[in-house]
């Protein structure tokens, strides 16, 4: 299941070389972005909203001990933006998007559709891989901020029902505590996660072994490896961005 690191770096190198060289596959890129958003939107909305409610509800007792329930909006805002939203979004996308990229490219490999592109003088790497990796890298950050927003709405619902806080007050309090560094760090993380999902899914699919079994394996390992790498990246980036927070 584990692949040699040098192969992956070669794969990424090829991506950077080909993605930014004309002719560009703009239409395919847009289609992929739309597909990724469309595929994960429902699940992400639901998860984000419920997480917002549950996280707020669970955090209340601890804050209440110090009589600090008024801190709830900022606590939830920071938690969502810094960690929950990027992680939830990427894990869901690794499951939905990563597996479907792995399966799609895998079955195109197995049924020789990728070879067919080669022989019709199209560069399949550029058309299939570059567009999908870019689409993931662009779309996952957007979805991440969307998840954060939906999560805040969930939190607002909970806070409004328990403490009767108004929406204006709630957003004022939570946005005040969010810094520019938080936004930058989240964006960078989400870009990294998106890129990871794209590269892993495409790599597994593009080089999937022959046979129907190969397709299943490609889909499966896209998810497993993708999630694994996302967790590692999360841990590393928490350490890294911690250096900037004093």
């Amino acid at each position, binding site marked *: 299941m584990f692949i040699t690191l040098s192969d992956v770096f070669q794969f990424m190198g090829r991506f950077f070389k080909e993605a930014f060289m004309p002719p560009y596959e703009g239409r395919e890129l847009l289609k992929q972005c739309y597909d990724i958003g469309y595929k994960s939107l429902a699940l992400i909305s639901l998860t984000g909203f419920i997480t917002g409610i549950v996280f707020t509800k669970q955090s209340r007792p601890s804050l209440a001990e110090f009589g600090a329930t008024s801190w709830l909006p900022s606590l939830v805002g920071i938690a969502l933006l810094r960690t929950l939203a990027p992680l939830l979004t990427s894990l869901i996308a690794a499951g939905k998007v990563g597996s479907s990229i792995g399966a799609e490219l895998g079955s195109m490999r197995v*049924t020789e*559709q990728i*070879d067919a592109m*080669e*022989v*019709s*003088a*199209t560069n399949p790497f550029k058309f299939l891989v570059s567009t999908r990796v870019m689409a993931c890298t662009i779309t996952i950050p957007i979805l991440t901020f969307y998840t954060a927003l939906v999560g805040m709405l969930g939190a607002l619902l909970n806070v409004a029902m328990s403490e009767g806080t108004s929406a204006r007050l709630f957003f004022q309090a939570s946005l005040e505590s969010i810094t520019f560094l938080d936004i930058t760090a989240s964006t960078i993380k989400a870009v990294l996660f998106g890129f990871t999902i794209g590269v892993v899914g495409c790599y597994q699919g593009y080089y999937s072994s022959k046979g129907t079994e190969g397709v299943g394996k490609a889909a499966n390992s896209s998810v497993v490896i993708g999630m694994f790498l996302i967790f590692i990246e999360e841990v590393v980036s928490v350490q890294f961005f911690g250096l900037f927070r004093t």
Partner: protein
Amino acid sequence: MVSKTTDIDREKVIEIKGLHKSFGDYQVLRGVDLDLYKRENLVVLGKSGTGKSVLIKIIVGLLTPDAGEVKVLGRIVDQISYRELLELRLKVGFSFQNSALYDSMTVRENLEFPLVRNQRRLTRGEVNSAVEEMLDAVGLLQTINQMPSELSGGQRKRIGIARTLILRPEIMLYDEPTAGLDPITCLEINSLINEVQERFHTSSIIITHDLTCAKAVGDRVAMLLDGRFERQGTFEEVFATDDQRVKPFYDYNFIQ
């Protein structure tokens, strides 16, 4: 049938010398020598698993040879850059054994795909008329908006051939165009292959197990035996032998 061999231009479009290819321990091709002349239809025969598909995949650079030289239209395939290879592939059509249609695209989009990607200046109208003309040529204009999964095996084969022809290649490589089809569809495909040769002046390699097809379309026949082309010539020459590796082919097709 009038021998078509006589008026063939003797210019070579493909020259293969001493080609070797192994997968692991299994030596598939062991010193293949083969020439394809301009405007001829060359039929390649051989038992299943002898490396016929491997051979034509090497010709278009999908696989790389272990040893030997493959020259296509004067270029040595494994020594040119990727960009040059793509340019060469514009001139070499490849129809896959399993058709390899893009199953997420309609028939129209399948045919458009190579065209819009390689001739970016074409207008929408020009693309549409090229697609329709080519579909008409293979007799499947009515399937234009269908998905590949809705087509029969024979229809898929013909769409695959149409998708290849739309770039007007100089060389056509057909991998088992009639395998698994009924006799009537086979005859249709045979006449399609002959029509392609006449209309587009292509030179072709046709891989097949079907001797009726071989006889109908082949100017010349080459038989792949134990990794080499031991027998080449006209249909009659190749089968004028008692070689037990060759005779069963003929007997099966014409005696039983």
